[in-house]
Structure formats: C-alpha cells, structure tokens
C-alpha cells in the first residue's frame, strides 16, 4: 500500500441511500422509499438529528423529519404505540438513526475521523449551517412522513473532495 495524501471518499447519493436502507431493513421495515420527495414542504416544524464527523475531514450528517416521522421511528424501535413514546425516547431513537447513518459515512471516508455523540433538536423552524455546504442529500418517504438525509462538509465547496458523481451535486 503506498502512502500518499488521501482524499476523503464521500458517499454518492446511491451510497447514502444504501446506508439509510440498511438501517431501515435492520431495525424498522422495508417500507422506506428513497428518492421520493414529499410534496408539501412548507413552513413545518422539523425534528433534526445529527452527528458531527471531525478530524482529517470535518462535516456532519443530518436527518430531518416531522414530529410524526420521528415518533414513528421511536415507536418501531421501542415496539411501543406512538402515543406511548416519551420525548426522550423519540430523541434517543431518532439520534440513533443519525448515529448509524453518520457512522456509515465515517467508515467509508478513509481518513482519520471521529464521530460525535448524536444531537437532537425536537422543534426547529429553520436550519442554517453557517460555514458548511451540503455535499449530498437524499429525500425519502416512510409511512407517509418525509425524511431528508444530508451530508454537510465544513468550509466552502471543495473541488478536491473525491466525489463519485462527476456532476456537481447542486440542490437535490
């Protein structure tokens, strides 16, 4: 193996989708449909979970969904009725989703990085990530609820980052 400057290998949309589908198939169900965008995207309370990846590459993996979406995730993972899950359990389950998808990203980046513990915000109106740009994202629908998984990289858009898609990933 030659030692050379390694460029971080970030997942393509297909690979991001694979990471998400693996999590769903393992712990939720087969019903997630990736690539589908929920039509009504306006002015909605969002739940967001993310993990930071730091080290020789810096960025974060973020998951957005509705309260019903997050509640559904918790309900399925805890095998409890949606009404029975507490906010802590919702945050825990939703955070674990971000942890596993983010962990999958970290595992393929190929340079030394560390994964943060997941952070969850249960009630967000607007999200801004200053000093970071979106590298790729996928939309999905699960049990009627929208989900968005996005990978953000710190700094301005970096041409040197190895991308599987040669076409620029503009808004997805």
């Amino acid at each position: 193996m030659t030692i050379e400057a390694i460029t971080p290998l970030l997942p393509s949309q297909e690979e991001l989708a694979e990471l998400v589908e693996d999590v769903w198939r393992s712990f939720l169900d087969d019903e997630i449909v990736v690539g589908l965008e929920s039509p009504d995207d306006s002015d909605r309370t969002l739940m967001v979970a993310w993990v930071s990846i730091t080290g020789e590459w810096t960025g974060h993996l973020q998951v957005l969904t509705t309260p019903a979406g997050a509640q559904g995730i918790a309900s399925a993972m805890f095998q409890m009725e949606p009404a029975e899950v507490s906010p802590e359990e919702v945050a825990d389950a939703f955070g674990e989703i971000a942890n596993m998808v983010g962990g999958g990203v970290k595992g393929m980046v190929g340079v030394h990085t560390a994964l943060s513990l997941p952070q969850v915000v249960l009630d967000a109106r607007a999200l801004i990530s200053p000093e970071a740009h979106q590298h790729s994202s996928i939309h999905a629908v699960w049990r009627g609820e929208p989900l968005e998984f996005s990978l953000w990289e710190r700094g301005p858009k970096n041409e040197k980052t190895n991308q599987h898609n040669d076409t620029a990933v503009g808004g997805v």
Partner: protein
Amino acid sequence: MYAIVIDDSSAMRMILRRTLSSMGFKVVDAVNGRDALDKLANLDYVPDVALIDWNMPEMDGLTFVQIVRDDPRYRRLSLLMVTTESEQSQIVRALAAGAHEYLIKPFTPDAVAEKLELLGLTTAGSLT
C-alpha cells in the same frame, strides 16, 4: 445463558434485549462502560457475553474491553463489540484490545445469532 448489553442509546439497548431474549438469554443492561463495570461487580454470576458499543460517555467500549480483559474474574466473559465504527483500523484496535468478535451497526438478528455462534454460544440448538 446470560448477557450484558452496554450502549448509551436506550433504543439500541431495547433492540438488543429483544433479540437476545428471543434467543433465550437473560439480559442485564448498562448505559456506558463505567455503569457496566458496576453492574458486573454486583451480579452473582458472570455473564456469557457482553455486547459493547464503542462511543459512550464516561467510559467508552474500548476502555471497558481493556479493563475487563485484564480482570481474572471475567475470563469467561466473551466480548462482542457492537458498533458503528467500521474502519479496518478500528476493528484491529478492538481485537488487539481484547474484543473477541465484532458486529457493525446496523445488524440483523441473524447476524447476532451467527456472531454468538462464533463465540461458542449456540442459541437455538446446533445448526443443521
């Protein structure tokens, strides 16, 4: 058979508890390495297997493995890492620290069963 599940996520503890229970294990859980050491010290038996997350507050899984591996009380305790850490170098580190086996999240119940099989902990009778 007895298992201890060590993970800071209550959802993950629940999932592993369900899977292990369906395989006939009695399950104790802990929220991090420090909590696991305390729980182990207070049990009147040594579990057959510990399923250990890596990244946890207070004491991470790798440290727990290093401590337990050096403790003669826990010689019979099989150490199965269950973690998102999936780089080759991380797996090597865990094995070098004393982990016996390694499972990458996400995982299916079959995968857990097969890892337990590798550890000599057959669950549903011998595979035909």
